[in-house]
């Protein structure tokens, strides 16, 4: 409810395009690189940044993001120093909304209330905790809302109308629709039935913007999803671009920004 997320979606809609939500893992390959990366992604056209908080056991993630988590943890990344990083880039003038994306245990270890106040202070705009579904995330969501942070929840193709409604009530900022069963990763196609799914979700969540992710990696896929959703999430493809650049001895920030620029050009309707 900092309003930054809502404004980003409104602005994109006004410009006749979907908002581009870009996921990167904080601390992959180092927090120093992430610190340079965030402004570069914003500059390249990311409307919202989903900043992954690494966890030792990321059950919802495919191989690309698993490797990124392992690299980030090996580089000493923790939830606390991710929050410090956000504070640093915010004071450096970063204006793009930042949503933390992670797993429950690091948040519980810090304490939900401590997490919320420290995140708000750092300039974080929202949080999505993958393994806190609405049933288990009631208290967390209200703590976030009370701290003026946007709780973001996932919906899946299998979420029944009842759950869509609950998620619509509990979420702020936007709702994240998982395009297909399975884990995060790069896929070649856009799943059939996605348009129906997005229509169904939109009908259930009121005025909240709906972003679609999981398996979206190319400008063509971005264009296809942009026609039906308010936002498009790209994660593993960006993570792989970073990984590839590091392996090739190139600047990962330049490589990721170049990819995001191509993706951003495909968000028009």
């Amino acid at each position, binding site marked *: 409810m900092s309003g930054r997320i809502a404004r980003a979606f409104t602005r994109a809609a006004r410009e006749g395009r979907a908002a581009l939500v870009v996921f990167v893992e904080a601390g992959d390959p180092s927090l120093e690189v992430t610190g340079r990366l965030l402004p570069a992604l914003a500059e390249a056209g990311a409307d919202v940044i989903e900043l992954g908080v690494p*966890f*030792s*056991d*990321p*059950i*919802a993630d*495919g191989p690309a993001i*698993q490797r990124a988590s*392992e690299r980030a*943890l090996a580089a000493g990344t*923790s*939830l*606390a120093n991710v929050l410090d990083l956000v504070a640093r880039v915010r004071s450096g003038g970063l204006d793009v909304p930042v949503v933390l994306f992670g*797993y*429950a*245990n*690091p*948040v*519980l*270890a*810090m304490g939900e209330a401590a997490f919320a106040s420290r995140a708000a202070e750092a300039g974080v705009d929202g949080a999505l905790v*993958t*393994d*806190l*579904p609405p*049933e*288990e995330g009631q208290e967390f969501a209200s703590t976030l809302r009370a701290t003026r942070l946007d709780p973001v*929840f*996932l*919906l*899946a193709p*299998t*979420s*029944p109308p009842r*759950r869509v409604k609950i998620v619509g009530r509990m979420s702020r900022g936007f709702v994240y629709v*998982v395009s297909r*069963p*399975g*884990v995060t990763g790069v896929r070649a196609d856009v799943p059939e039935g996605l348009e129906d799914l997005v229509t169904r979700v939109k009908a259930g969540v009121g005025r909240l913007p709906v972003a679609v992710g999981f398996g979206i990696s190319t400008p063509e896929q971005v264009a296809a999803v942009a026609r039906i959703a308010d936002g498009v999430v790209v994660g593993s493809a960006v993570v792989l671009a970073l990984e590839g650049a590091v392996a090739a001895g190139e600047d990962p920030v330049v490589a990721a920004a170049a990819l995001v620029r191509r993706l951003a050009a495909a968000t028009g309707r």
Partner: protein
Amino acid sequence: MAEKFVVPEADAAGRFGEFGGRFVPETLMAPVEELTLAYAKARADASFRRELHGLLTTYAGRPTPLTEARRLSAELGARIFLKREDLLHTGAHKINNALGQVLLAKRMGKRRVIAETGAGQHGVATATAAALMGLPCVVYMGSVDIERQALNVYRMRLLGTKVVAVDSGSKTLKDAINEAMRDWVANYGDTHYVLGSVLGPHPYPRMVRDFHAVIGRETRAQARKVLGGKLPDLLVACVGGGSNAIGLFHAFLPDRQVELVGVEAGGRSSAPGEHAARFGPGRVGVLHGTRTLLLADEDGQILPTHSVSAGLDYPAVGPEHANLAALGRTRYESVTDDEALAAFHALSEKEGIIPALETAHAVAWVLREAPKRPGSTIVVGLSGRGDKDVPSVARLEGLEGVAS
């Protein structure tokens, strides 16, 4: 008559007190709910119970005997009984749950089963049940465990199961569970995930416990018979996730006078990463879909664990155990790798029973504790046989020059 303990049952959200629940991504909520409904239906269905009972008696070898360990008893000064789950088909208690879940998978119309395994016992049990019921099976196993449990890997392959090596993280049980959950979330339309312990999101902790509760029911009746209508003073079982322990304990929970002790892996030392003893240094957190006691660092990252026994080498404990401990009904102790190895030898030499290294932890604690309780009656959950561990123990002792 002592006052009865009121046994807490999982509520509709799968909570045992503050533990349990369903901490899974939205993508897993549908399969978890489907399973909850299917299991509730099966549990209430006499034909399901009859079919499972038939498999347990005519295929798996239930009931298992309660053996009095006479030489150990004479030496320790207490009456020691062994609940012989090692005599079950496939050599461990795991088959109770595997048969139950694969039977349930068939009723649900699933055409494929997957499982994780640590020591390989649950993998072998699931592979066996899948072969029996004609379902293809894939088992995920950490590459470190594949190395130290080579015999069980080959057994699974003989049974027609595909064993997939997991190379991420610590390459042990927790990573195998991560990978099985990823498979399930992508394939739940036709796939059932046969989780092997009282862990994971609801309904697993309760369902797996129900399938193992037969251990305690039999023990209760058998003990009463040999003890002239009395109950034993103490039950002891090893605890990784805690399936054999909860199976043994459950029928005795109301009887406060029966002391219940779970034995965890103390590993090499109490330093972080060197053991798998969750009670004590453990924190309340969330792993693999459940809120429970687990080993994590102050940033909430799950710590690596160590145990000489692959089946106890896991950072979290089942939520029902965490709750029973919080209520003071059960308590948990740990023994070191060395104590477990000594018990492995002791039971082999004194009783002619080679226990699994997991099971040897429970035996080790009894060796330490029984002399302090002269005349008491103690039942040890003999959860599995040790054939699978013989090569690694021989190697360990050969390398360290301990073998005589």
